[in-house]
């Protein structure tokens, strides 16, 4: 870390760190609550509890939107915290982002639990307008407006990042490292965090704009049903937005690894040509790959489906060949002492790297025909979210409240970490097994032959929840101890 960045660290600590810490607490609590929703759903599918299907689908909607939202919020907090080491970011902008985010949360929760909106987090057109009597148009409008508020908050956030990166690194191309990659000049080369920030702000801004367009169309359709949208066009826009947005959460959170791991290994995460090239590929791949959500929409041009399959596979190359490989190289022989923060951060990268494999497999057109919308799908995304982004977020949170004098894991830390890994791995593997058993996803009621897997998954979910409860409590207590 340079002297300048240490100076900025002090500035962050005095101004913006408290609100970032508060954000992480909020994210942790929502993660925990959404996990409880997940457990309730798995227990209901397993026949362990009675649950009205109507309420199941409300929980499903809240779980999806809540998990994506908390992943986005925690990722944004991490990226902001570390970007502020290199950029003079305005705290007021972050507060504006957080305020809009919370407004969105209120609208979304209100639409679900007051208005009865249960159209899933994907709001697949025209389902919001055709509830079958379950919810009124107003509830669906509130849900969409909640997304819009969060999207506007993110645009504000990325605008600030973009302006400051452009000013500091002579334009966004400088921030992306593309001047170095394509022009060869390594003058004023950005650190990995800025490369990540620049890349994410480019693709996620594009994604949010597409999301805003389809949300606006959905809202108009809800208010004026005669206004129709082509369902396939809407589906493209929704999956483009949804795919890019959820992926952006991990690409924001990875900056915690870039910044924290070197303090353990003594080896700085370097901006190399391979690193910049990998991020340039990510900017393209993360957008082009969304076609793999449409592999069973046979009216799509065939080439788009082929692109979806090929780019699904290609997306694994920068992840495994660069990020995971680099993690291993930086750690090997470094003398690193494992504690809870670095263990969770490392788990996050490994979970992401391993979780991409079932995603790539499902991205094949022929396989997708047998696995699409089975539980294989939550199987792969829970692997790289629960054992990926969420692990990174808890690793960052644990690092924020770490005891610098203690460099080892306590007995409780070891127990919690092992429980999280065991519970998470068991939970996600059962999803994959269930997918291979052709069990459809998003079914409130499961046939008797499917219930054993749901029951087993409930046990693993409970283990994850217990571990997460300790992680959240540990973090909250750490914050209280450090508060003046």
């Amino acid at each position, binding site marked *: 870390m340079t002297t300048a960045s240490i100076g900025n660290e002090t500035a962050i600590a005095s101004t913006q760190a408290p609100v970032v810490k508060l954000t992480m607490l909020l994210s942790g609590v929502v993660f925990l609550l959404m996990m409880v929703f997940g457990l309730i759903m798995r227990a209901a599918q397993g026949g362990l509890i009675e649950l009205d*299907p109507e309420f199941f*689908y409300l929980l*499903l909607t809240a779980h999806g939107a809540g998990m994506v939202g908390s992943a986005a919020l925690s990722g944004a907090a991490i990226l902001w915290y570390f970007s502020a080491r290199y950029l003079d970011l305005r705290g007021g902008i972050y507060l504006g982002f957080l305020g809009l985010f919370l407004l969105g949360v209120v609208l979304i929760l209100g639409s679900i639990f007051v208005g009865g909106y249960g*159209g899933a987090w994907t709001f*697949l057109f*025209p*389902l919001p307008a*055709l509830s*079958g009597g*379950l919810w009124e148009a107003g509830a669906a409008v509130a849900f969409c407006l909640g997304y819009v508020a969060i999207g506007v908050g993110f645009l504000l956030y990325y605008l600030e990042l973009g302006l400051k990166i452009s000013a500091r690194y002579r334009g966004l191309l400088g921030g992306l490292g593309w001047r170095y990659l394509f022009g060869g000049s390594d003058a004023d080369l950005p650190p990995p965090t800025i490369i990540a920030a620049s890349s994410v702000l480019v693709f996620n801004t594009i994604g949010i704009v597409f999301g805003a367009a389809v949300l606006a169309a959905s809202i108009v359709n809800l208010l004026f049903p005669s206004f129709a949208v*082509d*369902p*396939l066009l809407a*589906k493209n826009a929704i999956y483009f937005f949804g795919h890019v947005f959820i992926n952006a959460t991990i690409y924001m959170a990875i900056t915690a690894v870039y910044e924290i791991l070197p303090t353990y290994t003594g080896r700085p995460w370097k901006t190399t040509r*391979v690193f910049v090239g990998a991020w340039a590929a990510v900017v393209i791949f993360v957008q082009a790959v969304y076609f793999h959500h449409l592999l*069973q*929409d*046979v*009216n799509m041009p065939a080439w788009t*489906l*082929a692109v979806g*399959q*090929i780019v699904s*596979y290609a997306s694994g190359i920068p992840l*495994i060949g*660069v990020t*995971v*490989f680099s*993690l*291993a*190289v930086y750690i*090997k*022989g*470094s*003398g690193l*002492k*494992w504690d809870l923060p670095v263990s969770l951060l*490392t788990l996050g990268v*490994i979970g992401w*790297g*391993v979780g991409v*494999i*079932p995603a790539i*497999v499902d991205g*094949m*057109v*022929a396989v997708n025909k*047998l*696995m*699409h919308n089975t539980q294989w799908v939550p199987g792969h995304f829970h692997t790289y979210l629960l054992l990926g982004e969420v692990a990174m977020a808890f690793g960052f949170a644990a690092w924020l409240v770490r005891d610098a004098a203690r460099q080892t894991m306590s007995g409780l830390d070891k127990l919690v970490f092992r429980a999280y890994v065991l519970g998470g791995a068991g939970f996600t593997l059962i999803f*994959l097994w269930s*997918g*291979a058993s*052709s069990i*459809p996803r*998003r*079914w409130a*009621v499961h*046939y008797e*032959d499917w219930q054993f897997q749901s029951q087993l998954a409930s046990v693993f979910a409970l283990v994850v929840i217990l571990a997460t409860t300790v992680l959240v409590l540990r973090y909250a207590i750490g914050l209280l101890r450090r508060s003046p």
Partner: protein
Amino acid sequence: MQTTILLITLVLMAGVLTLILRTVRATDGPAPSQTVNRTRSWLIWAMIAGGVIISVASLREWPHADAGGDALVVNVTSGQWWWDTDTTEIPLGQQVEFRVTTEDVNHGLGIYDPDMRLVAQVQAMPEYINKLVHTFDEPGTYQILCMEFCGIAHHDMTYEFDVVEAN
């Protein structure tokens, strides 16, 4: 088929996990050798080569094949929360082209064999007709399950048809 897919996936996941764990657990061992960047290049090029082979092998015969001229056409309509077909008996070994649509929201046509194993699927979209070509090679009662979340009775959206020996 699904079991094979699961096993291949688990083997790949276990392989990658083992390689990573071997390295990250060696914190007190020797540092990576000077050839580590060459190793990375080999890995990346191997992944690219593997991708080309897998892509060509799996896409050369397009998975969404068109129906032949003698295919039996079965029209499938759907809505919240029902399916309807213009026949409930399909001859064994006969190529079938399902023409699938919906009157309201998106649904997913998932065809399950008598052992409740998913054998094929396609999306059902308003304003579009999606074609699914399949040849049944086992007789028995098949089920159609909805694979795309479509509202409160999504899980009740099922239907049955029989695959019967041709006379």
